[in-house]
């Protein structure tokens, strides 16, 4: 742990030097090079969190990215980023192509980008790894669960996007429409959770399409918007049947029947104050056995505020509210009955206070306290996994997160 922080500090000073020379030329074209890395330490009381053995204190929270981008012409930009992370049992240091994009801007109101593209969904989905851009060490986990980063972070396909100024000083509309394929790492939260159910996915992928519309209103600093995503995802692998465990591992293939996400959001920035809020609803339905579908219905929202005290210090706080309902569709629904959201296994309510100190233009340190009620443990991850909590879950979890990082 100490060695990791020491290495990061060294990299920080190295990055400060890099900040002066972060581009080079190939055939008269300027190529920009940017990178970032962060290291976190998490200590919890109550439950182990985010697949870490955090009750004992865990430093298994590292991520990094490196990108190259070049403006080929007035309208064409190309670039790519490699990303790697290790979060408890997730990621496991398997680097991935985070994005690789060719972006052509015909007009202000019309641009296209293709390749592996970061998905616009709500305020921060595409920029959730850009830790230094916001005061929080962990974004509200009800909306941006870091263990499920793979589910929405990018699609291999294309976007159509643009900005349209409105008449009569009515502000501006920014739109994005996209379609492509999602491909989760097998080291992501959902496959990991399913292992506890004796389901071992080798692949988890499928189609995603949707859009985002955001209105920069005439009221200075106020932006509101909405996003929608539809998906059709297939998981392939093996599982041990509950009805016939003696048969051992047998092949399994499941495709979601329905899968959609709606997000509504608003952000208000005035001077050094930023307030933002989002509401998100996820609904998906997976065939379990013939005639029975498992439905997962998630309602989540947060409200966050942050204030920059000076050039180097920012403080913030948020409340994140997450409720998950799991029901068996069709015949099972009548037997299981409605979910009671007040039970701790059906929700996570998280009160957070956070502070960030910018050591210089390239390095930061964050300290954050989480006060959580509930553990939302179900057939869909919400930060708490039985693999790290084999003795059972506690209703409350407090967490201290220390995070430091650099970028250039």
């Amino acid at each position: 742990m100490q060695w990791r922080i020491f290495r990061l500090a060294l990299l920080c000073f190295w990055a400060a030097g890099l900040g002066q020379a972060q581009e080079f030329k190939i055939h008269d074209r300027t190529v920009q090079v940017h990178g970032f890395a962060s290291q976190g330490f998490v200590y919890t009381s109550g439950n182990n969190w985010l697949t870490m053995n955090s009750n004992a204190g865990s430093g298994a929270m590292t991520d990094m990215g490196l990108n190259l981008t070049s403006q080929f012409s007035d309208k064409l930009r190309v670039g790519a980023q490699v990303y790697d992370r290790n979060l408890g049992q997730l990621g496991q240091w398997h680097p991935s192509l985070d994005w690789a994009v060719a972006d052509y801007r015909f007009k202000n109101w019309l641009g296209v980008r293709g390749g592996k593209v970061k998905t616009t969904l709500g305020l921060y989905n595409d920029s959730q790894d850009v830790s230094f851009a916001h005061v929080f060490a962990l974004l509200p986990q009800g909306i941006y669960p870091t263990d499920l980063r793979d589910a929405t972070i990018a699609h291999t396909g294309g976007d159509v996007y643009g900005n349209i100024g409105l008449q009569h000083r009515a502000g501006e509309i920014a739109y994005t429409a996209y379609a492509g394929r999602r491909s989760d790492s097998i080291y992501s939260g959902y496959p990991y959770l399913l292992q506890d159910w004796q389901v071992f996915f080798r692949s988890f992928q499928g189609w995603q399409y949707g859009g985002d519309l955001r209105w920069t209103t005439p009221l200075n600093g106020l932006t509101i918007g909405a996003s929608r995503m539809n998906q059709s995802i297939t998981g392939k692998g093996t599982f041990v049947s509950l009805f016939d465990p003696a048969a051992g591992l047998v092949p399994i293939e499941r495709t979601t029947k329905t899968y959609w996400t709606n997000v509504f959001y608003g952000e208000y920035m005035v001077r050094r104050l930023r307030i933002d809020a989002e509401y998100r609803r996820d609904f998906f339905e997976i065939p379990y056995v013939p005639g029975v579908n498992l439905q997962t219905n998630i309602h989540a929202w947060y409200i966050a505020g942050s204030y920059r005290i000076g050039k180097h210090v920012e403080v913030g706080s948020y409340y994140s509210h997450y409720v998950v309902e799991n029901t068996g569709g069709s015949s099972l629904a009548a037997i299981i009955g409605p979910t009671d959201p007040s039970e701790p296994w059906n929700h996570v309510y998280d009160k957070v206070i956070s502070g960030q100190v910018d050591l210089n233009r390239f390095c930061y340190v964050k300290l954050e306290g989480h006060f959580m009620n509930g553990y939302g443990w179900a057939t869909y991850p919400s930060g708490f996994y039985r693999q790290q909590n084999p003795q059972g879950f506690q209703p409350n979890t407090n967490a201290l997160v220390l995070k430091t990082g650099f970028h250039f």
Partner: protein
Amino acid sequence: MKASTRWLITAAFAVWGARSARAAEVKIISNQSVTADTISAGELKSVFLLQKRALQDGSIVAPVVQKSGATQELFLKEYLDRNPEEVRAYYYGLVYTGKGLMPKELHSDAEVVAYVARTRGAIGYVSSAASSEGVKILAVVRQGHEPERRLLKRVEPEYPETLKRLHISGTVRLQLTISPKGNVDDVSVLGGNPILGEAAAKAAQQWVYAAAARRSTVEVSVPFELAP
């Protein structure tokens, strides 16, 4: 002129001018390849937030920013309404998501002017006292509630000799009332040195805008700068 009188005049102008310091101390410059003479405050914000690359006249532009300093803070506060840390985080948000390129960052007015002068489509900001040799100065138009009026004829103001001798420069903000035919019917000085304001108003009365269905008002910034 006696030294004490000169000092008093300068001090008086400084006090007057301080009221309109902020935008008045920053001017917007572009490469000569940019055909526009004016830029609306909204366009300027969109360009520096990397949301737009083309101005209304079709000119493709690429913003150049200052790494730090008073000019940077003034510009960001006046035209983007954000602090430097926020804007930097915003840029990095685009850079790390593949949705934008970090604008060229330079250390001083002189570096910005030199870069903008030699780079096609470059647009930047410098303090109003900075030289603008080899670059074009864009007047910033602050819109009223009416749709934008295109400037067809611009008459440059005469630099008052007294102020030139005293090495007093600055930027003046004017509010113009434009008739449906495009003539400037009325000029009000909103900020800046009053003598420069008078000269700017005199020139602006001769400007001609594109015809429109009804009267409209616009705010413009007129820079006065001394030759190096």
